[in-house]
């Protein structure tokens, strides 16, 4: 319940944050704190210093940018769930944001924090993966874009260098998208989550809690592209996946759920 001791620095710019991260490889960013602080309390992680970027208001926005929607990394889940632009142009992401945790969590948790935490059960990460979102990161060398498919490298690990800060998430405008989340209780992490959307002319499918990272259900996508029905394509949902076994579900059950939920998601899409 009590975190191990750490130092604290509140910064007023991303550049300041980058500099502090660069100085100490055991420094960690603090945004909404709703992925980090639970880990601190259980002493699963013991950073030397927290670099608090939570007040960088410039990183809290949702705006149209051509054929993309640009989302500031510090936008909170509750804001995304209620955002009219997002609701209009990428409703599946707004919906998923409304599924994260519970109202109190959604008031504080940020999309940047949640996504960087790279929990394989993350609703938002799964949707971003299905949408082929771009993640814009800033480092001492400037800005670069990492594709969602490259971003999640393992359980709770991402492609960011230690001194890189995720500043923006860019998603395509999507007319049709579905996020289905199977849970034991409403506040729980997904036992299995399925995101499905029409992106650039094809149906793309993301899976939460089916492996060490959020996954793309490529076998499903290929089957659909090859003309399979939703029911037949969904049969491939667990292909190549090694779903975890835990108290929320065995790997067999998760594989089964993935097939059912993918079929339902695809049926809802058409």
């Amino acid at each position: 319940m009590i975190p191990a001791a750490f130092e604290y620095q509140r910064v007023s710019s991303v550049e300041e944050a980058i500099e502090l991260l660069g100085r100490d490889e055991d420094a960690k960013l603090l945004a909404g704190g709703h992925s980090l602080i639970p880990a601190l309390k259980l002493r699963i992680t013991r950073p030397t210093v927290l670099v608090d970027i939570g007040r960088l208001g410039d990183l809290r926005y949702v705006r149209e940018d051509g054929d993309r929607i640009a989302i500031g990394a510090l936008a909170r889940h509750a804001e995304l769930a209620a955002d009219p632009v997002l609701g209009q142009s990428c409703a599946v992401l707004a919906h998923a944001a409304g599924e994260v945790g519970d109202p109190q969590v959604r008031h504080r948790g940020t999309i940047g924090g949640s996504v960087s935490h790279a929990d394989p059960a993350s609703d938002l990460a799964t949707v971003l993966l299905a949408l082929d979102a771009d993640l814009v990161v800033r480092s001492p060398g400037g800005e670069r874009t990492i594709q969602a498919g490259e971003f999640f490298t393992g359980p709770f690990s991402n492609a960011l260098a230690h001194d890189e800060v995720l500043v923006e998430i860019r998603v395509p405008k999507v007319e049709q998208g579905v996020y289905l989340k199977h849970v034991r209780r409403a506040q729980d992490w997904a036992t299995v989550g399925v995101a499905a959307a029409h992106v650039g002319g094809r149906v793309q499918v993301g899976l939460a809690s089916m492996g060490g990272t959020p996954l793309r259900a490529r076998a499903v996508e290929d089957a659909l592209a090859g003309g399979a029905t939703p029911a037949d394509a969904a049969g491939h949902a667990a292909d190549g996946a090694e779903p975890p076994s835990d108290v929320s579900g065995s790997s067999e059950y998760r594989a089964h759920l993935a097939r059912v939920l993918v079929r339902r998601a695809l049926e809802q899409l058409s």
Partner: protein
Amino acid sequence: MSILGNRVLRVEDPRFLRGEGRYLENMPLEGAAWVTFVRSPLAHARVNAVDTTAAEALPNVQVFTGADVDAHPFGPPPYWNINPAMVRPLVARDVVRFAGEIVAVVVSEDRASGVDAAELVMVDYDSLPVVLTVEDAAKDEVLLFPDEGTNVAARGGSQEHDDGFFDGCDVVVSDTVWSQRMAAAPLEPRSAAAELGEDGRLTLWATSQTPHTDKMVVAGILGFDPAQVRVISQDVGGGFGAKMLEVEGLLIAWLARKLGRRVRWTETRTENMLALLHGRAQQLEFTLGGSRDGKVLAYRLDVLADAGAYPILGAFLPNLTGLMASAVYAIPKIEVESRSVVTNTTPTTSIRGAGRPEAAQAIERALDLYAAEIGLDPAEVRRTNFIPQDAFPHTTATGATYDSGDYEGALDLLLRSAGYDELREEQRRRRAEGGPVELGIGLAAYVEISNPVAETEFGEVEITEDGGAILRTGSFSHGQGHETTFAMIAAERLGLPVERVTVVKGDTDEIPQGAGTFGSKSTQIGGVAGRLAADEVVERAKGLAGDYLEASAADVVLDPALGRFHVVGTAEPSLSWVDLATRASTDGRLGELKVSQEFQAPPTFPFGIHLSVVDVDKETGKVELRRHVAVDDAGTLINPLVADGQVHGGIAFGVGQALYEEVVYGEDGYPLTGTFVGYAFPSAAELPSYERVEMVTPTPHNTLGVKGIGESGTVGSTPAVHNAVLDALAPYGVHHVDLPCNGENVWKALQEAKA
């Protein structure tokens, strides 16, 4: 016009609503040292050495190990007939027997340093083989207490099995229900604090449902004269049967004496999930035989209970399970056998229902399996076998004497209230339509035993100088509303407004004796004791009033509506309680208006019948509880508002077992459900509103006619939901689903039926 039976809002609410609850962790306790327990991460291991050097290098930190703690071990009372060698040292010495067992005690100046220091205590363990299930424990291969030669800690019922028991039964059905291990999970984690006064008296503050019993245990184990021990429980945030004195409280008391200063402890939730004793964990193997036309003739129940590592109350509870095995049914032949075995898990104790939910979970599944086998409606099979309404008092073949009951009346009321025929019609329609979601309708009738060991409770009424009253009770409300309901009982007799009666509890110095609150006994013995004391106070007050009104006591009456004493036949002159108290005080006679009473009564038998409606997604297995209709009859209702709340909470607890909750151990004996993330007890989002249907069949065992309602909702709800799930899956040939009926267990059952 009696106040009893009215929906009186609770007088204790304001402090809770304002955030002024007197929970122990809120007490300032200036100067208290903080205690942090170091607990074994291993389920079974030899302890070779405990190195406290690094921990004690932190400023102002002291660490105590098993070798330091000179106190008796903690074990069950002898009349529970549990192996007396299987006792628990307060701090482990040579061996740890469950993950969570205390191996060292850290004392620090603040909470955070305690956590830091506890991490630095280095324990050298040698792992031992681990036994985690009752089946494995019963094999007596891995022994927790090798000198005892067995893992069986207690036995009950009859070891003899009659081979011809089911002769003459056309139909025999059997199955095994694993009533899974549950966590009580009160929202308030435990705290304890203690200090040794200069007068040598020990004060222990506790989050306990049983302060008076705790006082005796503390005295016995730590070698105090009981008169030198004071236990104080104030506001306790839920208990559910599990919050009674445990080793942590004893260690806090020991430390206060050892250090000569105040000490305090508050557990984290993780610690609570590990170390607050668990409940249920009974394997129920049942066999039921009957005729083809629906008459149950014989029932056998074999209970194999998981006592955890150190057998205590959980090892005794199969006696209650066996006692209530035949429930509401007039079954002529019953055989019960029980064994309690030790395993490398957290010890088990009572949690809401304590043995009676288990009995109901078995017999109600048996009835449904029997009904399915003979093709009769589950409601009708139950009706055919109920103990008839005119048969009370009724002594069962297991030796329980039920006081009063009307099971058929409850069934009729329930079926009408729920619209049973319409529900079956909807089910027929839905089945004809096909579709991914099946509708299930489940029934469960129950009778349970409240005040199960016929306890005695204390009640004292004292009139105060300002003409109000204090009711001191040995009961201990930790959410049940006694401050209001007991005040109502006394107020009704005294003719005072409810707000003028203050209920006091929880301090063993102020209240000389008490049975605490568990087993749904408080109103029927504590409330009644208060009533008897109030009645006696009124008699004495009549005497005093007579003196002041210059009449004989026999001619004085109390007008309860006005709260005034007057001579019979003439309303004036009269004296109010204020008048009486003022004059008596002046005359030094106020002490006459203080009376204590004890009341003991045999157990009473609340009963009821629940109906559950579930939607089961046959693809994902997920079960949604759509409706829950509950008839619960606990006799006279003192305050129907409070009674409703008890039933609602009871239902939720039982639904939690039916659909969501289980304490699950990993292969290594460490729980996988050690937090509120893993242990899924439901929120409002998982539950519907309930339909409670009132029914009142008084008991003859006390003048109020009141039984106990606190656990009723739990006893009836789990089997109703379980049966509903099975009912939904009946078309698929499913006859068994493991509890909890979560998505995976339902899906597995469907897979097995297909195979």
